[in-house]
């Protein structure tokens, strides 16, 4: 009941990045206590670089979630793209650029298909992208006979693995970090643009948006394409970081959705910032690193992760006045 809302002015704008900044701050303090040298430029840079893929996936997932949908296919899309890239490049440096272009285009195409099925066939995106997940995994296994073939070239891997050396103060700055910073700026600008505002409005109230002339289906489809593109870039970085394997993207869709929700973005759409989503991903990565530093046993880690997610989301749900 909208009319019964309390009138008090909210101290923090709901969906803003402040809560996630607070959590991130606490984790940083814990890191500073436990592992002070982690905050030295060199290791911080490498941490940020290796976190780039999940940050990108969170940003991509943000576009979809804020418009009121889900994208469960990104993890398998990353896997598929890495495997495809490896097989097509097959260690030949000359093929690097065309294959990278192909990776981006095909990832965008998968996003487009997700968007079209969701918008025009009216299939709930949870189902569309769940089906797409199965199709992608099945197809890529089928195509590669169940075992990735070929090899990524060093040129391809450089983006996820190498760094700009000898930067004053910072030391080495990973290419992945530069790419993620650039894309973060672009994403922020995009969300401040007309399209970004329309995207959030679609997630908030698609009916109202449609009656204001918004092409809801098209807008959401673009969100899926953006998510696909993000997955494509993430595949390039992740493939670069760790090489080809079928595990490259497994489970990343849930990590990305978790990160987005941690970042204060409402499932169902209409609220939250892309900065919050990306910070959510960074927080999640920092949590994993922290667990490494604290030597949390590998087997209880999921429990710690689950508890923290539930607590963080429960607290923000309790703070949010809308029911």
């Amino acid at each position, binding site marked *: 009941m909208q009319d019964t809302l309390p009138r008090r002015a909210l101290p923090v704008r709901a969906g803003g990045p402040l809560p996630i900044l607070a959590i991130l701050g606490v984790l940083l303090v814990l890191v500073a206590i436990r592992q002070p040298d982690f905050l030295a430029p060199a290791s911080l840079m490498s941490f940020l670089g290796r976190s780039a893929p999940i940050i990108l996936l969170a940003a991509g997932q943000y576009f979809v979630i804020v418009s009121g949908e889900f994208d469960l296919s990104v993890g398998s899309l990353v896997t598929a793209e890495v495997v495809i890239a490896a097989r097509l490049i097959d260690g030949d440096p000359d093929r690097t650029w065309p294959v990278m272009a192909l990776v981006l285009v095909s990832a965008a195409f998968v996003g487009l298909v997700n968007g079209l099925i969701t918008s025009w066939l009216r299939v709930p995106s949870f189902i569309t992208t769940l*089906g797409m997940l199965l199709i992608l995994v099945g197809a890529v296994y089928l195509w590669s006979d*169940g075992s990735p073939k070929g090899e990524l070239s060093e040129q391809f891997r450089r983006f996820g693995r190498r760094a700009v050396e000898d930067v004053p103060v910072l030391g080495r700055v990973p290419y992945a970090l530069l790419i993620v910073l650039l894309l973060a700026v672009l994403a922020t600008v995009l969300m401040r643009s007309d399209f970004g505002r329309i995207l959030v409005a679609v997630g908030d109230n698609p009916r109202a948006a449609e009656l204001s002339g918004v092409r809801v289906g098209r807008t959401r489809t673009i969100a899926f394409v953006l998510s696909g593109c993000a997955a494509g870039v993430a595949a390039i970085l992740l493939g670069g970081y760790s090489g080809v394997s079928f595990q490259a993207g497994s489970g990343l869709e849930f990590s990305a959705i*978790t990160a987005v929700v941690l970042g204060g973005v409402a499932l169902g759409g209409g609220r939250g910032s892309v900065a919050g989503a990306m910070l959510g991903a960074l927080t999640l990565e920092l949590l994993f690193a922290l667990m490494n530093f604290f030597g949390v046993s*590998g*087997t209880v880690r999921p*429990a710690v992760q*689950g508890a923290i997610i539930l607590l963080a989301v429960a607290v923000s749900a309790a703070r949010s006045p809308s029911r």
Partner: protein
Amino acid sequence: MSALSFRAARRTVPGVYLALVLTLAIGWLVVVLSGGTLFTQATVVSLLHVAAGLGLVAVGQTLVIIGGSLDLSVAYVVSLSTLVAAEAMNGSDTALLPGVLLALAVSAGIGLLNGLLIARTRIDAFIATLGVGLLLKGYLDSGYDGPAGATSPALVQALGYQRIGPVPMSFLLLAAVAAGAWLTLRRTRFGHHLLAVGGDPEVARLSGVRNDRVLVAAHVLCSLCAGLAGVYLAARLGSGAPRVGTEGIYDLESIAAVVIGGTALAGGRGGVAGTVGGVLLLAGLDAVFNQLQLDAFAKQVVRGVVIIGAVAVYARRVIGKGRS
């Protein structure tokens, strides 16, 4: 207005059964043409066994989805339940009943936790059950490094392997649970309220339905079904298996079976009859692919297409109906 003719609400057989028959018919034809047989007793028994495990989980999943919720923790509940049952029984027939009851009680407790998180703290069901699933995963990973306990031999015999003709006891159990769920939805207050909560929570509230309680109860039932699936798997496998739920991908597969069966993901519409059809369809695909010895990966692709296609067909129907 008077010219308006009323379509009596015949709850027609869900379209999934048509798809099932078609799949089996085409599958049969292809298998026979390639020189095999599809409907041998052994194959049918296998098909029904596979359907029983997934079916039990999916029936529970149907209930929460009808209520507008979702349960992603079922896979871990299944695993946990096998372990609780098998460890409590520890190979003894005397501990059969306590073992089963304990497994079900633990499962119900998890369902209660899910339900309370969703209904009381207002966490989105997706995140709540994902989080609870992670908690369970942590417990399973740190507590077990492989199969543990031993299911009571009587239960293994009765539920794991006994069959009447080509129909295993486990499938009869599924049939009974599905019938129970069907009756619950159609003939109990709780069922009517659940459909209302999923259809329109505000209307339900204004009509005096206690939405929170209904939702919590649905989650408890869902976890109970998963727990029962665990008991069946413990009987089938002879011991508790900490990874059996995740290996079977029971979380996503159960959701897939539910939506293939025509239940709306948004809640308020659908039923268990369709879900059982969905489960049989998935198991039937398994059987056909097995007989043709086709790659499991190709089957994965087919499943993806079937899921999207089925829901697209249902969506089209709803739109068509809305326009008429």
